[in-house]
């Protein structure tokens, strides 16, 4: 091959060292790079669709009934959130890690074949995941939703295809010490492996469904722990590792402070592992957990900024370089956005601030600033930097890069600023009390003031998507050229000792001075030489991370999961069979994407929604459906006839006829779908196996299936009779209404929140004895 197209570097060696020529394996990097851009574009498209649906809820309402469920806001929102995390975010991380780990270890990837398997497996998992989520196979929480076989695949691929490869590459390195990026990569691999493995533990119900192990408060805490863990250790930690590698490379300057990077790494790991409960303030989790989340979240401010300090210090005032290099521009601006969002996250950890912002669009603004600002910009910067190093082109067209930057910035501002404004408007109207302490605004009035900003962000999203198209064009133009063959000459491992030695001394300045011996010993410790030793030993490093992380996890999990002090309700009963399948419909339709089920101990919430939620109410909720947003009102006390069953029937048929300003999608497919009553028995049995107290004894001549079908039909008839008595139809689209899925969903909703005030068994329970 022509010499000029082979990039070689010479490591500074003493002249007697033996040379080895290695070729880096960059095929996988290129594949992941293309995948990142494609999935990023898809995520943007989904964002445009969901944004359109909020501004224009009737967008898909004229479609055939059977297409409707796949195109509701809830389904598309679930797809989009998962795509942003596991498709765009993860692929970007893989791109950067596969490129940088080889060069930081001065060795070719341990197994090229395994990395190709990783690529194919990951994209396959993603495509299947999107398919299943679109069909409604969600386990009830936003990110941990996929069917259990996919979750197993995810864990196995992450740990034994990806993690193993990276770890073995590090073991076989020719560079004695681990650079800081590698610490972050190791932490991410270990932590995400632990999170995904714990999340995977479910009781399967058939091939696609599963029951979670815990219920109620414990389950809600676990769901949140997992989500926080993925956001932290799949989306923050590895990106910081990428910053430590790509920013100094792009800036061409030394990293600012080695010592700060050590403190940065360990404080982030420790605090992030303990901070998950900051998203559960004011819920029935034990208050010490909520406080732990808050205090760790606050303490995370400076550790997050350590990365910013290190990054900007590396740049050290050379802001002119940003004008020349779009890669550097994206990376630095991304880092600045990270500085802002991490401060914001710390402030949002405070309980009283959280009381104002939770459930509102403010949290969405924050998520978008993080994912489309910090993470996406870092990814774009990394891609622009990688392109000329992955292909043999004489020069790369950087004008496109700068153009993309400005488009992305404009798009980002038009997305995030309206969301802050709408969040602020929503929250203010929810909270406002008159002089006499009364609610001033209805929920719909708050929604209307928020929705006036929503159309702007759709425009912003379109602009941002256009920016990604510019990037894709850039990449396509570059990839026309042949790949670059990256080779280096490195010293073989025997000659490691001939490498220029450490000139940094770890001797304390206090030695020999008139101070106590312990003072100089402590000073010596703060020089962190012991960490330097650790950096030579990746296995011990990994064990340290695993130990610390595992310990912190167990210290939180055990008290919370084993805690016996949650409030209980004496009269609580499990869901009736019909309510149980109705709940499954609620979960499959993704109602949690808009509706929360958690009334917090805050005056305006108790006034608006009813008595505050208590732990004992949720003990049969498997999975818990506490929710994170209030695009629609909270439903925790929606039951017991707060709205008549006829109202719910009509509301599912077409909500905008009832409330013109609503954004609730049309769910009329539920009104014409027949409910398979014969399958209810199996569902109840599956629930009983995992601990719910259902009575499975059958009498002569009946099976479990027939017994529970009868019980469910009785309750369905009662509800249908209510609806008919209140003026509703007897038949809807050729089906008797008592046979439809909507009746089951109405049964579930009418059950919500009634356990708290029940004195005697409800009439529905009387027909389905549980003990």
């Amino acid at each position, binding site marked *: 091959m022509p010499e000029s197209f082979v990039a070689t570097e010479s490591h500074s060696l003493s002249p007697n060292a033996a040379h080895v020529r290695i070729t880096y394996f960059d095929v996988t990097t290129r594949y992941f790079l293309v995948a990142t851009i494609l999935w990023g574009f898809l995520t943007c498209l989904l964002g445009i669709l969901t944004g359109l649906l909020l501004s224009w809820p009737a967008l898909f309402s004229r479609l055939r009934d059977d297409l409707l469920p796949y195109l509701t806001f809830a389904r598309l929102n679930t797809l989009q959130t998962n795509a942003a995390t596991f498709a765009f975010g993860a692929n970007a991380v893989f791109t950067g890690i596969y490129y940088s780990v080889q060069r930081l270890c001065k060795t070719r990837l341990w197994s090229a074949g395994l990395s190709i398997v990783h690529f194919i497996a990951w994209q396959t998992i993603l495509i299947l995941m999107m398919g299943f989520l679109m069909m409604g196979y969600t386990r009830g929480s936003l990110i941990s939703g996929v069917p259990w076989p996919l979750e197993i695949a995810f864990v196995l691929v992450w740990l034994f295809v990806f993690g193993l490869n990276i770890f073995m590459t590090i073991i076989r390195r020719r560079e004695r010490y681990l650079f800081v990026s590698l610490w972050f990569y190791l932490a991410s691999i270990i932590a995400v492996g632990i999170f995904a493995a714990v999340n995977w533990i479910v009781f399967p119900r058939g091939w696609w469904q599963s029951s979670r192990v815990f219920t109620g408060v414990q389950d809600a805490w676990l769901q949140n722990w997992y989500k926080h863990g993925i956001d932290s250790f799949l989306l923050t930690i590895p990106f910081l590792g990428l910053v430590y590698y790509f920013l100094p490379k792009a800036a061409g300057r030394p990293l600012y402070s080695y010592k700060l990077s050590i403190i940065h790494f360990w404080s982030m790991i420790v605090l992030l592992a303990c901070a998950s409960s900051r998203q559960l303030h004011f819920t029935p989790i034990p208050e010490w957990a909520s406080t732990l989340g808050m205090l760790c979240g606050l303490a995370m401010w400076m550790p997050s900024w350590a990365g910013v300090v290190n990054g900007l*210090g590396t740049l050290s005032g050379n802001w002119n370089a940003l004008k020349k290099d779009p890669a550097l521009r994206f990376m630095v601006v991304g880092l600045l956005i990270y500085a802002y969002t991490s401060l914001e996250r710390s402030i949002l950890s405070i309980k009283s601030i959280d009381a104002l912002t939770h459930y509102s669009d403010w949290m969405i603004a924050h998520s978008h600033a993080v994912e489309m600002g910090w993470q996406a910009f870092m990814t774009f910067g990394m891609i622009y930097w990688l392109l000329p190093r992955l292909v043999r082109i004489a020069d790369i067209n950087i004008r496109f890069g700068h153009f993309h930057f400005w488009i992305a910035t404009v798009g980002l501002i038009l997305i995030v600023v309206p969301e802050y404004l709408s969040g602020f408007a929503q929250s203010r109207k929810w909270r406002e009390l008159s002089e006499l302490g009364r609610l001033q605004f*209805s929920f719909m009035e708050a929604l209307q003031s928020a929705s006036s900003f929503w159309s702007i962000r759709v425009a912003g999203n379109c602009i941002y998507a256009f920016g990604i198209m510019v990037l894709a064009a850039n990449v396509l133009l570059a990839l026309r050229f042949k790949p670059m063959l990256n080779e280096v000459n490195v010293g073989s491992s025997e000659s490691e000792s001939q490498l220029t030695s450490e000139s940094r001394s770890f001797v304390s300045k206090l030695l020999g001075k008139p101070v106590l011996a312990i003072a100089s010993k402590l000073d010596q410790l703060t020089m962190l030489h012991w960490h330097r030793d650790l950096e030579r030993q990746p296995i011990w490093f990994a064990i340290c991370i695993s130990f610390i992380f595992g310990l912190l996890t167990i210290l939180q999990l055990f008290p919370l999961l084993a805690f016996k002090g949650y409030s209980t309700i004496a009269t609580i009963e499990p869901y009736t069979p019909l309510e149980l399948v109705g709940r499954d419909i609620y979960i499959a339709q993704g109602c949690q994407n808009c509706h929360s089920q958690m009334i917090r101990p805050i005056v305006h919430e108790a006034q608006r929604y009813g008595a505050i939620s208590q732990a004992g109410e949720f003990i049969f909720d498997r999975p818990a459906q506490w929710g994170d947003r209030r695009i629609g009102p909270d439903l925790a006390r929606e039951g017991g006839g707060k709205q008549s069953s006829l109202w719910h029937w009509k509301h599912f048929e077409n909500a905008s006829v009832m409330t013109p300003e609503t954004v609730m999608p049309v769910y009329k497919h539920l009104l014409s779908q027949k409910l398979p009553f014969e399958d209810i028995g199996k569902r109840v049995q599956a629930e009983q196996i995992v601990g719910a107290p259902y009575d499975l004894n059958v009498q002569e001549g009946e099976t479990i299936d027939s017994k529970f079908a009868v019980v469910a039909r009785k309750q369905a008839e009662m509800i249908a009779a209510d609806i008919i008595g209140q003026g509703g139809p007897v038949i809807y689209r050729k089906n008797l209404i008592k046979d439809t899925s909507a009746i089951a969903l109405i049964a579930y909703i009418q059950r919500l929140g009634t356990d708290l005030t029940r004195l005697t068994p409800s009439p529905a329970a009387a027909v389905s004895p549980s003990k």
Partner: protein
Amino acid sequence: MQNTLPTITLEHDGIQENTNPIPKWWKSIFLCTLGLAPIYLLCFHVGAPGTTLVEQFQTAMDANTRKQYEEIGNLASDEETMVEYLGKSQWLAVGSSIFKANCISCHGAEGGGNVGPNLCDESFKHIKRLPDIIKIINEGAGAGAMPAWAKRLTHPNDAVLVSVYVASLRGTKPQNPKGPDGSPIAAWPK
């Protein structure tokens, strides 16, 4: 930040690392945020009464209820009280906020009716006299088509005040009124 300290010869793939010390302001702020922890714990987690979130809520809720009803005490559910409060615009505003929070999904934003009947016209289904409104609100009607609100409203006064507001809607002109339900009744007493 000046990046001028001598570069150490640590070098990873061309990236060199400097030995700049950790900035003082970074250390101070970090220690402050860590130092907040014991202070916060002492304030809120030593078991002093009234410091848990739920207890703080109870205190605030009691204060709120007092604020709402200090002036008027417990209202009687009779015609006299209702006529009296029909004339008090401040308490009509309170009734309006209760209405907005609970009733508009069925009765429309201005009481013009939707799933539930039009409250602004002269025809009523279950009401003959003013106190009947309180009864219907508390107990429901139409086999659950009109829910029973007695357990859901935080205070019995709420039912009285929202009933007065509903009574005041009679004769108003909402935007999209539903047709009349029931039969016309005598006017409210003055």
